[in-house]
């Protein structure tokens, strides 16, 4: 962990959100500073994916309260594409297949739209291809995969690897990984972790949603949070994840119930 200790990259204050009238986020508070790695854990249905979707700007979710600032800007005011171009990247839990759009064309468009937004010249075709080749090697992405339609017919693991490959290409300031480790074999897990660790420069931050300690052996978090019923109910350091691995969530749930009753 380095970076400016006083700077805040992401600040979530009392964030509430619902979908189809169902309350899912019930007041999330989280502060992420540059260079930090935060792990978010929690039982199924707790609202982890909802939180990442709300941060990425998915329209289905209605934000009913709270605020989110990203590098001093109001994130919730921005369109999904502007959030991305400001440096937010979400590695999806379930990446969609997009037939007919090649990975290469997609990435070239994404990179050049970002550069345009930032007032930079578009990347030349040869420079782009060279850059892409480097990242493909890093992620051990097969050439056959990038020449195909985006995610079409990819295996579960290949889709996840493709998410991290895109992250490596887009070099975001803040990466939110939603269970990127689920469904990965040991080698792919190591690749994905290497991809993340390679991007770490003391400035870039990561919010890693996971159910498993094994990812956190590779990507060591500075903070671990437990999300339950739409709130962060417990935070700690890396040891909290290890504790959860052994004890499960029941003791936390009990704590929460007791607090509520008190």
């Amino acid at each position: 962990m380095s970076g400016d200790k006083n700077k805040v990259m992401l600040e979530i204050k009392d964030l509430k959100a619902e979908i189809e009238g169902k309350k899912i986020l019930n007041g999330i508070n989280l502060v992420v500073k540059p260079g930090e790695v935060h792990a978010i854990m929690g039982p199924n249905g707790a609202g982890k994916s909802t939180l990442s979707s709300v941060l990425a700007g998915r329209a289905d979710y209605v934000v009913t309260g709270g605020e989110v600032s990203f590098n001093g800007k109001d994130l919730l005011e921005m369109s999904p594409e502007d959030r991305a171009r400001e440096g937010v990247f979400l590695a999806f839990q379930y990446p969609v297949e997009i037939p007919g759009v090649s990975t290469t064309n997609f990435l070239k468009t994404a990179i050049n739209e970002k550069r345009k937004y930032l007032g930079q010249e578009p990347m030349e075709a040869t420079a782009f291809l060279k850059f892409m080749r480097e990242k493909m090697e890093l992620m051990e992405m097969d050439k056959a995969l990038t020449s195909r339609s985006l995610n079409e017919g990819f295996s579960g693991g290949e889709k996840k690897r493709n998410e991290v490959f895109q992250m490596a290409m887009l070099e975001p300031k803040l990466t939110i990984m939603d269970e990127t480790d689920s469904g990965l074999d040991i080698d792919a897990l190591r690749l994905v972790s290497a991809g993340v660790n390679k991007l770490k420069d003391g400035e870039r931050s990561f919010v890693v949603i996971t159910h498993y300690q094994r990812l956190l052996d590779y990507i060591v978090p500075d903070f671990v949070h437990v999300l339950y019923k739409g709130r962060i109910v417990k935070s700690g350091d890396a040891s909290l994840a290890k504790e959860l691995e052994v004890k499960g969530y029941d003791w936390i749930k009990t704590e929460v119930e007791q607090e509520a009753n008190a």
Partner: protein
Amino acid sequence: MLLETIKKDFVQYKAQAEQGEFLTLREQAFAEFEKLGFPTTKHEEWKYTNLKSITDKTFQSTCEIKSLVNELFNASIESKLTANFLVFVNGSLVNELSKIIEQDNNIVISSIAAARKNNQTIFNQHFGKYAKVEGEAMNALNTALLSDGAFVFVPKGKTVTHPVVIFNISDASDLNVLAQPRNLIVAEESSSVTLVETYYAVGANASFTNVVTETYAGKNAHVEHYKIQQQGGESYQNNFTQIFQEADTNINHVTLTLDGTMVRNNLHFYMNGEHCNSLLYGLYVTDNKDFVDNHTRVDHAKPNCFSDEKYKGILKDQSTAVFNGKIMVHLDAQKTNAYQRNQNILLSDDATVNTKPQLEIFADDVKCTHGATIGELDEEPMFYLRSRGIPENVARKLLLNAFADDIAEKIKIPELVELLENLIDEKL
């Protein structure tokens, strides 16, 4: 009124007509047309397609050819191909623009008029044998008053090296024009040919094209047939294609409708032998108040045949599309595999789609599926692209191009696909 034009034309034709079989055929067709009259929306098959804006107009059947035509031809994407060209303006062959590069003298690529002189036996053997006149007013009309058209004859075992481009232009610079092209394609046993049938219009007046194409595919023949419709201005087209397949034939038919005030396509396949493959793909991109109607019919008359049909539409403004896909599985057509999809994306609240699958299955051991969708672009892919920093309008474009290119890529001439994809991109 169009009917008056037609009657006058037929009187004129008869006055100078040759005698014999051909005249009889055309007289019978004319009688059939007079009996039926123009289809109206009371006919089930024409429920959504109102020909009134055509039948209320007066059209001229011939017209002088202008330099505009040369310009249009030279600017077209088709003219960039290494291919055989038969160019027709208002239904008449233009020698200066037509060019046959096929070296094999046994292969015939000519006008219908020439074929009637030079290839009488083959011509008489096939002409009028597949496109039904009975009950089909527009076919009857075409048969009675056909102008000219393409004749392609590929003898047994031969392959036409380069595509045959059948290039039709309606020149409505001076008057409303009526053209009734007629094409006959005969691909004998184990032969192969690629056809590119294309339509343009120039001029400020209205044009009406009523075209009939008959294709005979002999045993094990392979026919690639691409239809590209881009008639601009006020243009009307009724296009009837009947494909007759013997056993083991492969037909890949792609229809791209990119412009036209009113386009009605009737594409009929008849499988007369086992182990046929029939592929029917279509794309329509419509805007303004344009109207496109695709009526297809696949007759699985024999067992063990396969058909795959996919029509896609992108509709803008107040445009309308109709899709009607009939699949007839005849009584003894066991082990038929037939697939059909019609997918539509509406880009405007004022656009309309009427889609109707019509499966009539009389055999019991068949696999048939169909599905139709009408809607907007899927939100999931849209959000995915935007979440990577691609703005909404660019993302929409990427997805629409992908949707459309899927059909364009069924064309097996890479240079043409690239040019068409650019064209589609512009249109979107």
